[in-house]
């Protein structure tokens, strides 16, 4: 299949022409004709691609014949072209398909080999428990190399000079050269994962030195040097043994170090999420790398670290100390906790060690292998050594390097009989023997250090966490640890006991101190007199107490006194008899107790009875007689002279104090001016000065005899009450004024008459009843008006205005104002409303006449009785107006009643709201003034009437 480019064609050429032309040389499969056209659509170039099945010879022929030949007015130009894209794609797909079909055969072959290998005991190209160099049984070209990996023996052709030579390359022989960089192929899934960053950067140098760390502000937390050394030892010893080991050791080191250092805050970067188990040094290195590469990033982190506290931030040194211990901010304390070794669960442990090389070799296998290779040649020795090294690996499952080391040593010692003949082993062994002692120490130290970290979790747990490969070894380990633990516990118990004992001693001593509360100290003098007594008492002491150290003579003295007070036995009486030689004033035991120290100086003139004041005291004493309760001693001495002196002193002192006080005040005033807060400081100074003469408020008792306590008396406000009573009286009086407003009554009745005259006569009876009611109503209203005189109770005035409207505005004039809710219209409308107002009384009268609010509004002397109420009543009235026609039919209304036409207008706003508002506001002020005036007048009138 060839693809040809044919250029220089004339524009008239068709596909068929080309097909025919090239068909001579081979089978034309496809012709692609292209024509280039310029902007006007005139073709200027025509070419084609031809897919043709053609042999090379034919192609050559074709080229020679047709190339540069003239055809239909064009010079042909033939070149081999690249395959068409589509074609190629199709081809590729095809090949892919083919390959898919093909592999089974190849895989079959592979599978066959794998099967045969597995039959020979090879799994996943690894042969467990096989010494490097062993041939895989059944496969002569396959050999077990280092790490148990099965590799083919290579036959390499070597062209050396003229003759060819085949070279056999046995990988097992070069096994010690192979470094295993990747994870074991045994766990395929694990090998797919990328190696953790922490492990990749393990050997990174730079930024690790102390200076650069300090420059970054990171100070390594204090660490016991001995421990560190052991760790580094472990690391170093393990470093020599190749990468996987190193890895493991890193993990273990990280494990042990993590709890000691809290990780720095910079550790929170995304790539380091797995770094919980990373060692501090590693982290520092990583951080250094990061910080050097990303300055901006670091800045960000700095920002995060910057803490802003409120004004009320409390300084707490205790917390700070803790921080200091951590060496970092308090937010890292959480990390600290999380990374604690002792809290590691088994699952954690397993996860950690999942990526660590581990060969499951049973002891029996090892023995067998060892025996097999005891008499092998020199070449196999290193490989066997490597096996032994592998053997040692599995038990290396402790959580600390010390433990690992210890386990290692144990393993080695237990396997000594297997490895005896290996010379290479000798040197490390010697090392190990040295190390074993170290390891033992280390393990013990590790347990002790754990205790130091106040986690009293026994090391047992750590062992438990590590599933032991060989049970008996673990047992040994466990046994040892348990023993250590028991020893430790015993020590702790003993210490506790000691402390308890100590406590007891002190308690006992103190109990005796406490018991003789009164006058105990005075017995010190007394002690010298009665030694025998002491001894006896001491015996009893011994019974009481188990201690002997604190038993000092002083203490026994105390006990003496105690026993004397408690139980006046025969011993005590004897002592008293002994003392009674000088016992002249002794009346009772208590007195004796009190006067003990004055035994010798009993007849001396008492200093407190000297002088004028002393004489006074003496007299007092004689008045009380020998009563012990009223004994006068020097404390009761009046100190007149001293006082005088003191007063003199005080005078000068007060002057100074005054000066100081003045100064202080001055400074405070300056302070005020400086700070600008005048009130605050002055008040505080007052409070402080008051505080000097502090009095407990809770202890304050009211003393009616004291004048200053009058402030505590709550004065009953009688005046107010009086005023209230007076007001009430006034109101009552006002309500008793019935005689006024007779005229109006008549007026209304007359009006009514006129109104009812218009209506039918049947209603006359009703009208009479109404009259009465209106009578009464009017009367009441009048009364109210009288009593309130000027008060702005709009309701009655409105009523009155409504009622009297038709007869003129005399009422309105009387009240001095008229209120209309609807502005100017009200005047015009009031006439009409007045008319039916009176008529409508009948139906709803009860509802509004007996409205308690209505009465209240009139009786209460409040200034403005709310506009809304008034509104309500008015709307009430209007509602009534509206209702009446439907109810009474033609009783109040007649066809084409003007009221019916005008009435609804009342509901509509006649003017703008703003205008109304303004008007209302104007009027309101007027009304108010007027009302006040009237109110005053009324009061005056009342006063005069009362007086008269």
């Amino acid at each position, binding site marked *: 299949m060839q693809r040809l480019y044919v250029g220089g064609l004339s524009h008239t050429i068709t596909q068929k022409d080309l097909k025919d032309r090239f068909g001579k040389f081979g089978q034309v499969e496809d012709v692609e004709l292209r024509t280039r056209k310029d902007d006007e659509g005139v073709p200027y170039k025509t070419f084609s691609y031809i897919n043709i099945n053609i042999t090379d010879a034919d192609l050559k022929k074709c080229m020679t014949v047709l190339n540069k030949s003239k055809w239909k007015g064009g010079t042909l130009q033939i070149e081999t072209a690249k395959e068409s894209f589509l074609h190629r794609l199709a081809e590729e797909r095809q090949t892919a398909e083919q390959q898919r079909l093909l592999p089974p055969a190849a895989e079959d072959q592979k599978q066959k080999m794998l099967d045969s290998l597995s039959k020979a005991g090879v799994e996943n190209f690894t042969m467990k428990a096989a010494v490097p160099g062993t041939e895989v049984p059944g496969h002569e070209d396959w050999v077990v190399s280092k790490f148990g990996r099965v590799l083919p023996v290579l036959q390499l052709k070597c062209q050396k000079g003229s003759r060819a030579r085949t070279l056999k390359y046995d990988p097992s022989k070069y096994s010690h050269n192979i470094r295993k960089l990747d994870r074991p192929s045994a766990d395929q899934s694990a090998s797919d994962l990328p190696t953790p960053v922490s492990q990749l950067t393990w050997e990174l140098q730079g930024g690790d030195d102390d200076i650069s760390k300090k420059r970054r502000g990171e100070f390594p937390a204090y660490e016991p040097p001995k421990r560190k050394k052991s760790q580094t030892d472990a690391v170093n010893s393990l470093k020599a043994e190749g990468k996987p080991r190193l890895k493991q050791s890193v993990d273990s080191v990280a494990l042990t170090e993590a709890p000691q250092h809290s990780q720095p805050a910079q550790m929170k970067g995304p790539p380091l999420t797995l770094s919980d188990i990373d060692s501090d040094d590693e982290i520092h290195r990583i951080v250094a790398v990061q910080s050097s590469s990303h300055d901006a990033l*670091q*800045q960000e982190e700095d920002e995060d670290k910057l*803490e*802003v506290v409120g004004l009320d*931030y409390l300084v707490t040194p205790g917390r*700070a100390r803790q921080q200091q211990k951590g060496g970092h*901010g308090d937010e890292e304390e959480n990390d600290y906790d999380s990374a604690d070794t002792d809290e590691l669960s088994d699952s954690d442990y397993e996860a950690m060690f999942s990526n660590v090389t581990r060969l499951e070799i049973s002891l029996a296998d090892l023995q067998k292998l060892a025996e097999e290779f005891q008499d092998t040649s020199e070449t196999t020795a290193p490989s066997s050594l490597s096996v032994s090294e592998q053997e040692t690996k599995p038990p290396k499952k402790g959580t600390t390097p010390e433990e690992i080391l210890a386990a290692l040593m144990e393993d080695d010692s237990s396997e000594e009989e297997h490895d005896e003949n290996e010379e290479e082993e000798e040197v490390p062994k010697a090392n190990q023997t040295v190390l074993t002692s170290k390891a033992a120490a280390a393990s013990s130290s590790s347990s002790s250090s754990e205790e130091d970290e106040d986690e009293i979790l026994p090391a047992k747990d750590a062992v438990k966490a590590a599933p032991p490969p060989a049970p008996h070894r673990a047992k040994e380990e466990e046994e040892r640890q348990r023993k250590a633990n028991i020893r430790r516990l015993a020590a702790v118990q003993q210490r506790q006991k000691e402390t308890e004992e100590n406590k007891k001693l002190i308690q006992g001593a103190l109990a005796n101190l406490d018991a003789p509360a009164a006058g105990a100290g005075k017995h010190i003098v007394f002690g010298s007199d009665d030694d025998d007594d002491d001894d006896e008492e001491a015996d009893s002491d011994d019974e009481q107490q188990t201690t002997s150290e604190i038993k000092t003579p002083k203490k026994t003295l105390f006990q003496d006194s105690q026993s004397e007070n408690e139980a006046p036995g025969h011993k005590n009486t004897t002592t008293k008899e002994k003392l009674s030689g000088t016992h002249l004033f002794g009346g009772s035991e208590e007195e004796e107790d009190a006067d003990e120290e004055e035994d010798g100086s009993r007849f001396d003139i008492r200093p407190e009875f000297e002088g004028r004041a002393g004489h006074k005291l003496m007299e007092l004493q004689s008045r009380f007689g020998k009563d012990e309760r009223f004994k006068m001693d020097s404390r009761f001495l009046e100190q007149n002279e001293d006082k005088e002196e003191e007063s003199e002193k005080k005078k000068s002192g007060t002057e100074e104090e005054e000066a100081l006080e003045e100064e202080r005040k001055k*400074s405070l005033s*300056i302070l005020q001016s400086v700070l600008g807060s005048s009130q605050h400081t002055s008040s505080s100074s007052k409070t402080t000065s008051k*505080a000097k003469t502090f009095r407990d408020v809770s202890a304050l008792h009211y003393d009616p005899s004291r004048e200053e306590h009058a402030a505590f008396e709550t004065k009953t406000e009688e005046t107010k009450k009086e005023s209230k009573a007076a007001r009430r009286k006034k109101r009552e009086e006002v309500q008793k004024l019935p005689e006024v407003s007779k005229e109006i009554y008549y007026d209304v009745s007359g009006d009514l008459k006129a109104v009812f005259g218009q209506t039918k006569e049947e209603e006359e009876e009703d009208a009479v009843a109404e009259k009465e009611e209106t009578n009464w109503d009017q009367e009441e209203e009048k009364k109210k008006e009288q009593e309130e005189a000027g008060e702005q109770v709009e309701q009655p005035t409105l009523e009155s205005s409504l009622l009297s409207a038709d007869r003129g505005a005399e009422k309105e004039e009387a009240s001095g104002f008229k209120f209309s809710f609807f502005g100017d219209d009200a005047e015009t409308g009031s006439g009409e409303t007045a008319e039916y107002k009176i008529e409508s009384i009948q139906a709803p009268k009860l509802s509004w006449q007996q409205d308690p609010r209505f009465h209240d509004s009139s009786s209460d002397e409040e200034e403005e009785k709310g506009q809304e109420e008034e509104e309500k009543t008015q709307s009430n009235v209007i509602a009534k107006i509206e209702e009446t026609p439907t109810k009474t039919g033609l009783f109040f209304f007649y066809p084409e009643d003007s009221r019916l036409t005008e009435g609804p207008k009342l509901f509509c706003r006649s003017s703008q709201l703003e205008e109304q508002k303004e008007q209302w506001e104007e009027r309101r002020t007027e009304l108010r003034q007027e009302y006040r005036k009237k109110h005053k007048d009324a009061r005056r009138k009342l006063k005069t009437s009362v007086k008269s």
Partner: protein
Amino acid sequence: MRPLTEEETKVMFEKLSKYIGDNIKLLVDRPDGSYCFRLHNERVYYMSEKILKLATNISRDKLVSVGTCFGKFTKSIKFRLHITALDFLAPYAKFKVWVKPGQEQSFLYGNHVLKSGLGRITENTMQYQGVVVYSMTDVPLGFGVAAKTTQECRRVDPMSIVVFHQADVGEFIRNEDTLT
């Protein structure tokens, strides 16, 4: 030794109020006795009444120091706080700055506090506000003046100055001979 004049008092209080605000009144009238400020050798001493009385027994030219020296007046009657006043400034300070352990030493050698060494700062600190500098363990180290507001401190680059140094406890050693 004499009491401060009104002007002097004012100048001094203005200075003090930059650090402790209206807490000065706690110094002026204390509930545990009367304390006062006295001027001696251009220096202001804060002392209790008792000590004041005792100090009267010593002649003026022989008296080196009495009570606590708060600072001194310059020739142009400006008040300069001394580190000895820290004991009274620290408990009443309104605005505080905490320096990281790495910068502690630098500050104690008389350097300004840089952003990189700033561990914590009181919120709403204004520029040129007097601040007391603490270590992260809440030990007062000295005082200074905020060069940046708290908000600016967040944004500024790590090598810029955040607090201007005024006095630090290192002066007790450095200026041992002049401190009274």
